[in-house]
């Protein structure tokens, strides 16, 4: 591997022909000429990356990027061997034979149609001496009960436990649950339904449902109530080390009285006593209960509100979301790098929040944090704190919960870490004890 592999990989990520879904938001935005190259205005050679000899990779950023290091672990920034990629063309990375790896493991068995794949220790890895696992086999098992049965029989070492199975396995010795990097919330579209353009109506909806009960009885898998745009333990104050979430506190909490007051005010402003809204969600088992619960809570606490539930397959929901053809929508978000910006970026005007949210105050604060304050960590952090508060002062959306993943994990597996972003697990230091 040489510096040229990085140059090629990064150029390929930004190249508009590649149509990378992650290239635009990560690589292009931060590299010199990135956006121009991505929009086809400049050739890829003009991108701010070059190889200084075979072993020095030089990156020119478009602006200071405080979270640059955490970006580098995401797959878009990995090196690619030009000869190999060109040789395989459209088939690159479509099977174990057409992909290359230089990490602790390499894929030895995988087809795009497979429901089973295998990774084996990479003897050529620079740090191969510390890698203890010889082989990892993945099996796709769609039915969670079957996965749990396979686990009980000792056929597999780890199985995900779905919400409906938690009660059955929670007292199991091998049961664990960890917080995922995923926040679920209710999008409130301000552009389709006149009533939802009213800030008081939105404020009422945000605080009119009991999130604790939702997490305890419907999710029941260790998921936690979420109170803002960032989860717990994600970003720390650069000097005091205090948690972002702790400083800003509960920005959106369950409060029936406040909700009803805002609701009355909103109805008065709109000159009506009845509001009808549609609630959009993915068509799955969990959402059947979740949508029923939400509709019930909101209708009970906000008199005159009528909710119609609409559940559609994922692809269709995304289309409705993009076209802003919904009123309320259950959706989730995750972060791609270690910075508050990763959670906040889509709330800027036209940043892809798909709910018509646009705030000069918010935009200004984010712009400050990303440009003028980029080199002043404390002030930058404070700008993000302020920006998050603005979101809830303007009742942009309703946070619901941070998802947790419940699992059965064999105690013989040591040091396999679940990762907050970029990849699911790190097995480099993992070992199996008998």
């Amino acid at each position, binding site marked *: 591997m040489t510096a040229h592999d990085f140059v090629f990989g990064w150029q390929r990520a930004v190249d*508009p022909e590649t*149509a990378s*879904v*992650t290239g*635009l*938001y990560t690589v292009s935005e931060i590299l010199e000429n990135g956006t121009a190259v991505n*929009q086809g205005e400049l050739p890829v050679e003009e991108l701010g990356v070059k190889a200084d000899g075979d072993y020095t990779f030089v990156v020119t950023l478009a602006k200071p990027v405080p979270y640059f290091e955490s970006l580098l672990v995401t797959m878009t920034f990995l090196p690619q061997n030009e000869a190999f990629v060109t040789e395989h063309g*459209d*088939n690159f*990375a*479509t099977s174990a034979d057409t992909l290359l790896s230089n990490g602790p493991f390499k894929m030895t068995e995988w*087809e*795009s*149609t*497979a*429901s*089973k794949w295998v990774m084996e220790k990479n003897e050529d890895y620079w740090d191969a001496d510390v890698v203890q696992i010889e082989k990892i086999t993945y*099996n*796709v*098992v*769609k*039915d969670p009960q*079957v996965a749990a*049965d*396979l686990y*009980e*029989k000792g*056929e597999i070492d780890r199985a995900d436990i779905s919400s409906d199975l938690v009660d059955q396995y929670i007292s199991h010795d091998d049961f664990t649950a960890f917080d995922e990097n995923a926040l679920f919330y209710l999008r409130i579209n301000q552009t389709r339904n006149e009533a939802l353009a009213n800030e008081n109506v939105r404020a009422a909806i945000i605080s009119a449902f009991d999130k604790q009960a939702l997490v305890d009885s419907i999710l029941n898998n260790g998921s936690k109530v979420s109170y803002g745009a960032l989860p717990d333990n994600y970003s720390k104050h650069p000097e005091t080390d205090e948690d972002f979430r702790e400083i800003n506190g509960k920005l959106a909490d369950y409060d029936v009285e406040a909700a009803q007051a805002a609701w009355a005010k909103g109805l008065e402003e709109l000159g009506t006593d009845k509001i009808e809204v549609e609630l959009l969600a993915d068509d799955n088992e969990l959402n059947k209960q979740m949508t029923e619960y939400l509709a019930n809570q909101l209708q009970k606490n906000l008199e005159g509100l009528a909710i119609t539930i609409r559940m*559609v*397959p*994922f*692809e*269709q929901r*995304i*289309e409705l*979301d*993009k076209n802003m053809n919904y009123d309320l929508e259950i959706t989730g978000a995750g972060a791609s790098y270690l910075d508050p910006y990763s959670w906040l970026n889509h709330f800027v005007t036209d940043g892809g929040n798909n709910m018509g949210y646009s705030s000069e105050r918010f935009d200004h604060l984010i712009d400050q944090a990303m440009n003028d304050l980029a080199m002043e960590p404390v002030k930058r952090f404070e700008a993000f704190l302020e920006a998050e508060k603005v979101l809830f002062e303007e009742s942009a959306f309703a946070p619901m919960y941070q998802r947790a993943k419940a699992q059965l994990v064999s105690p013989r597996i040591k040091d396999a870490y679940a990762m907050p972003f970029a990849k699911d697990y790190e097995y480099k230091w993992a070992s199996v004890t008998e």
Partner: protein
Amino acid sequence: MVRYILKRMMYMALTLFLIASVTFFLMKMLPGSPLKDTDDLTKAQEEMLLERYGLNDPISVQYAKYIGALVQGDLGTSFHFSNTPVTKIIKDRIGPSMQLGAQALVLGTILGIGLGLIAAVFHNGVWDYTSTTLAVLGISIPSFVFAGLLQWIFAVNLGWFPVALWGGFEYSILPTIALMIFPLATAARFTRTEMIEVLGSDFILTARAKGISEYAIVLKHGLRNALIPLITVIGPMAASLMTGTLVIEQIFAIPGLGEQFVMSVMVNDYPTIMGTTLLLAFLFIVIILVIDLLYGLIDPRIRVDGGKSS
């Protein structure tokens, strides 16, 4: 005979063409984008991809292109499984489905006929009621319940078979039993009804009067006549059994085609939807032809070329 088969094949081609056309237009009416990761794509990227896959062309042009490629045996490339040709998806996935389907069909039909025969011979006796009850249960218990029960009893509790996943023959036993219950019950029901009717007819009475053994009467004279309606129902069942069943594949975590088919519809993967639909249609048509030819073999009174038999 050859002329008949040729004529039938022409009709088959026409039928396939019609199915391909209707599916094509129905599929285009599915809501949602056929592209993957649409929530992360920009408008410009989406445009570029739609252009690349020819999805911006007028429907008539897309249709003409599709039929053109189809005639040359090209089913296209899946939108969702990283540039995988649809033929490869089918090839990689159909093995387990075919194996399970064939095992279930053969075993189910044989056992079903046996059960039906016993019921007919001991008409209104204990054996009849037992086998009829079994058949009714087999038809009415949904396969996911039955598969789940089998798995729970024989794999999870008794540990006789693997719980799930796909490997050697032992992995196919429980899914085969789960899958075979429906053809078994159907075969038993039809065999019983037909046999009771046939055994009561005049030529059987004649045979009995001639002193032919009961064994020969039931198997040679009776069963042969009862097979006609049975083949009519089992044949089409074979087509759907061999192309995989979502429920069984999910419960036993089998990498079959049934799951792929359902998934392709969910995500609007047009080429895969078309490919799998056509495969099912093709199998169906071929099986119907085979059945028609089999009729002649089983019952000489049925001749395919209009009575000019020699």
